[in-house]
């Protein structure tokens, strides 16, 4: 099993989720994060004090999948999260040693 983590622009969240759902993926977990990278944030100005906002809002999508779905998952995320502008984000893939569904105790790919 793999855990695919995607860091994408917030307004792309719905699209990515829909794409993953249509692959048959039934669950994922989302968190709000702040990204630092090539994309520069805007500047906030308060009574003359300028603060370069180096962090831009992103969402992190985590989805655990069986190994054989890795390719199509990456493809789906990349396709839907893509705008072509700097700051589109990253996909990171990790090996998942184990997965458990708390409700049933199922383990491995069944738990996803």
């Amino acid at each position: 099993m793999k855990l695919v983590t995607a860091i994408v622009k917030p307004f792309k969240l719905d699209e990515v989720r829909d794409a993953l759902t249509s692959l048959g993926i039934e669950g994922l977990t989302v968190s709000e994060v702040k990204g630092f990278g090539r994309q520069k944030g805007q500047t906030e100005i308060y009574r003359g004090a300028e603060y370069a906002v180096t962090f831009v809002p992103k969402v992190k999508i985590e989805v655990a999948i069986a190994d054989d779905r890795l390719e199509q998952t990456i493809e789906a995320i990349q396709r839907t999260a893509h705008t072509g502008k700097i700051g589109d984000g990253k996909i990171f893939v990790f090996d998942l040693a184990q997965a458990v569904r708390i409700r049933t105790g199922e383990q491995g790919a069944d738990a996803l």
Partner: protein
Amino acid sequence: MSLRKRASLPAVIAALFAFAIGLALTVSAYAQTAAPMTPEQQAAAKAAEAAAAEVAAAAAAINSGDTAWMLASVALVLMMTIPGLALFYGGMVRKMNVLSTVMQSFAITCLVTVLWVIYGYSLAFTCYGGTCTGEGVAWMNNWIGSTSRLMMNVGLNAVNVDLAPTIPETVYSCFQLTFGIITCALIVGSVADRMKFSALMLFIAGWFTFVYVPIAHWVWGNGWLATYGVLDFAGGTVVHINSGIAGLVGALVLGKRRGYATHGGETFTPHNLVLTMIGASLLWVGWFGFNAGSATAANGRAGMAMLVTQLATATAALAWMSAEWMVKGKPSVLGIVSGAVAGLVAITPASGFVAPGGALVIGIAAGVLCFWACTSLKNKMGYDDSLDTFGVHCIGGITGAILTGVFAVGVFSGTADTPGGTPGLLEGNAKQVLIQGVGVLTTLVWSGVISLVLYKIVDVIVGLRVDPEMEVEGLDLGLHGEAVH
């Protein structure tokens, strides 16, 4: 180019200030010089002199109790816009747009204030030619007031003898100013989330001048609609229908918000209805100044206006809540507060004319009709009236304006000369409903058409809508360089 963009609006404001200072100098200089006069001027001067004597007499008639209530009313009605309306609207948008939304109410408050003092009050609330009643009224006064109060050039004890004879004219001017402010600020509910700040400022300056000022004069400044017999105690036509239709036209011209109704996501959920609840509550509280203040005195009519306001508001809130509960399965905070505002809107034109029984029916009608307008009509028609200015204010205003013609109790508007006052349909005066209809239609057409023209002009000058990217990433950062953290 970027410089041009930066400097243009502030420069306009600077020019406005320069003009106003010049005007102030002129006006006070004028007051002290005496140029030779033409015969007509002399006649006018004589009339003015007579008027002045009248003023002096009236000044003695300033009533401290009435003045106390009207001073308090000014505070109450200003509070309706800032922070009331700012929060009512601010809570309904997405978090990334909340500052831009409250900024609109605040900036409009400032802009309208300056325009009001320079020329708004004078053109709307004085009479062309100086005479307001009787034979001597100029025909032009049907359409527009005089320039006698440019820069509010009055003494401490001046009064507006025709419209508010027992309070200082400064107070009356401030009171009417707060009406102008909120009317303009209401419009932003329809165009929220996508209109440029600079475009909005330009539009409001034009709309105030070419729509608000004339209609206020027609209805309240002894203009043609007043003469025609339209009843509008505190602004059903002048304030609510007027702003509501201007909002709808704006929503249509601007088009839908990016992503509106195309996705099922939670994208357009209001970010903080606690703010909206605060706003609605302050609107309610401040509305006592609006409606009971429109008696321009602390008397029995103000009292009755307060009572029917309270009753219609509560009724409409419960009506909307009940309708929603039945149709959608749950009573919501946004529902009940929207109903309350709908009730406030609908009772506004009626408040000095109807008794509690009428208020109850007006409240029910407003609650149910505005619920229908915001939840069904809008979706059927497909426009994106972001925060339902049209659905609540225009529909609620029409409901109230027409029903005023139905439920008006004659004696409430009776005077020493005409103790019977203006009765409504239920008291046998069916014609009043038609008269009210004329007021409604006039406002819809005038405000609708001029607004459309103004939007188009502003679009050419600075462009109405923000960049798509800014719309997606939030107007707070994009337009104002700020964010709520």
